[in-house]
């Protein structure tokens, strides 16, 4: 090939259009191995250590890392069997390099290196957050959720945003391209929204994980019974569209958690029964109100037309309801992948890996490490 011809073709010259990619995810408490062919989902095997964290009321990093090591090979075998492929067949191995829990990430990164090295495949260390957006492309999605499949496409719509909400993350992203243009528009400055759910569930005695527990308790409560704070919504933080304040698109949930604790303690001090359902409903309303209001504002001010919801809290009934309502009012198309693809999984890592392979992005070196605070702009390492 002449140099001129090289310039005319994209970086993807010679790259398979629909690469077969195996993806590994171990950034928190889910050991995930997924396999995709381009945008077609072939397998999504997940082993969770959630049960081991219940008595602690939250994920214990060291327990999660122990579980990843034990679960890795069985999960890998399940994924390969489900997809009906051999390791030798894959075009690349992708793995979450960060962000996440350092000790947990290292298990996946080391496992991925072993597979890539042994099977002589390129290795892609990818960004967990961008991978959450990558699932929006997948077809043949798990039908267990009764959703998905029809929304899949070869590429994301050009002006896509992503709202990621989980126990470890609360972020809004602008995604121009999954492979080379991702921008962080806003994020929590302290606790993740899912973490606030876990902590409030614990102080209400509702158990772990907090999301479903609070959602259940809230069903019988009055969301207007308590007016809990919507943090970072005062003019000095928000500013205007022209002159945005420092935290216009950011969230904060630690004060909300404290406000709930104070309310509970006031009832206890007075010897009165704690109105659990009303508190749960009011807390949930405060979280979901500020989450959706800020996400929709960030999206509209950046002229986005599609908003994708990801992360474990995407399963929350009230979040889906209010977000759908506010997206519709703002003329934003809302996409919510099936829950099994919203929570952490290997298929999303494989999906992003496939995009990187197809775009001709250079693979990662074998000496990459885990980056627990990997910035969203760093799509692959």
């Amino acid at each position, binding site marked *: 090939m002449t140099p001129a011809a090289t310039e005319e073709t994209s970086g993807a010259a010679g790259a398979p259009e629909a690469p077969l990619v195996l993806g590994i995810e171990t950034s928190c408490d889910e050991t995930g191995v997924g396999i995709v062919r381009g945008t077609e989902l072939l397998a999504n095997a997940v082993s969770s250590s959630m049960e081991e964290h219940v008595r*602690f009321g939250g994920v214990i990093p060291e327990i999660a890392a122990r579980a990843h090591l034990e679960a*890795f090979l069985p999960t890998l075998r399940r994924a390969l069997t489900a997809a009906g492929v051999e390791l030798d067949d894959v075009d690349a191995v992708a793995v979450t390099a960060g962000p996440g829990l350092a000790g947990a990430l290292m*298990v996946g990164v*080391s496992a*991925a290196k072993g597979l890539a090295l*042994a099977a002589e495949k390129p290795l892609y260390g990818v960004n967990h957050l961008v991978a959450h957006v990558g699932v929006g492309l997948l077809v043949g999605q798990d039908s267990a959720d009764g959703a998905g499949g029809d929304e899949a496409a070869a590429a994301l719509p050009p002006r896509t945003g992503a709202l990621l909400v989980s126990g470890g993350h609360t972020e809004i992203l602008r995604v121009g391209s999954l492979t080379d243009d991702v921008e962080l528009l806003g994020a929590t400055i302290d606790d993740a929204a899912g973490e606030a759910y876990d902590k409030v569930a*614990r102080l209400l005695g509702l158990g772990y994980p907090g999301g479903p527990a609070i959602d259940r308790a809230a069903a019988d409560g009055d969301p207007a019974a308590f007016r809990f704070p919507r943090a970072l919504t005062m003019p000095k933080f928000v500013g205007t569209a022209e002159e945005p304040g420092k935290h216009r698109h950011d969230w904060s949930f630690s004060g909300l958690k404290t406000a709930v604790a104070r309310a509970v303690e006031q009832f206890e001090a007075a010897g009165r029964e704690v109105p659990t359902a009303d508190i749960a409903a009011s807390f949930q309303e405060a979280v979901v109100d500020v989450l959706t209001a800020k996400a929709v504002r960030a999206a509209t001010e950046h002229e986005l037309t599609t908003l994708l919801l990801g992360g474990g809290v995407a399963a929350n009934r009230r979040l889906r309801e209010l977000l759908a309502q506010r997206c519709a009012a703002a003329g934003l198309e809302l996409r919510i992948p099936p829950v099994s693809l919203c929570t952490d999984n290997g298929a999303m890592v494989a999906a992003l890996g496939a995009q990187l392979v197809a775009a001709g992005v250079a693979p990662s070196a*074998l*000496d990459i490490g*885990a980056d627990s605070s990997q910035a969203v702009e760093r799509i692959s390492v």
Partner: protein
Amino acid sequence: MLLAIDSSAGASAAVTDGETVLAHRRTDATTTHAEVLAPAVREVLIEAGIRGAELDGVVVGVGPGPFTGLRVGLVLAHSLAEAWDLPLHGIGSLESLARRAARHGLTGEFLVTADARRREVHWARCRAAAGAAELLDGPHVGPAPDPAARGLGDLPAVGRGVSLYPEDLAPAPGLPEDAARWTADAAELGQLAAAGAVLRDPLPLYLRESDAVAPTARKAVS
């Protein structure tokens, strides 16, 4: 021919053929396992001139050692053996030190030690004769005086624990000065496996439970 990996203290990888070490990489750094171990494996294979699938097996040190590094080596070994479809064997990392001491002429009973952090050591009681050593008791984890408390205080010791806790652990006589700083090495694990050492499941020897404590009463905020 075996590929051996150890990540119980530093990180090391070796290709061995019986007693012969064909290729070897090692670092004493304790915080770079995730980065250096896989490239080291690639390098020793190239240097030994063998393809992974042509090996007879993979041997991995199961510790005891700091958890994160230990897991990095173990899961790497799991992946490699799975992809190459090779048998995978675990071997106690402290046995590397026992072999080294015996090879340097130590005889009789002695202790092998490693840094367990938190002012504790990993240790085991061994016996050496005619250049070979056997494990009699352990491995255990405990404060450095732990062996003395068990009536083993007079036994000579080798390994990192000796340099960290010289007041509690006595250096074995007749060994090189650096025996007080010895840490496990993959090459010796490969040699031990070839010589019929006791093999273990390729699972980590943590010896300690996770530190996590379940929350009890919550703290008041007001």
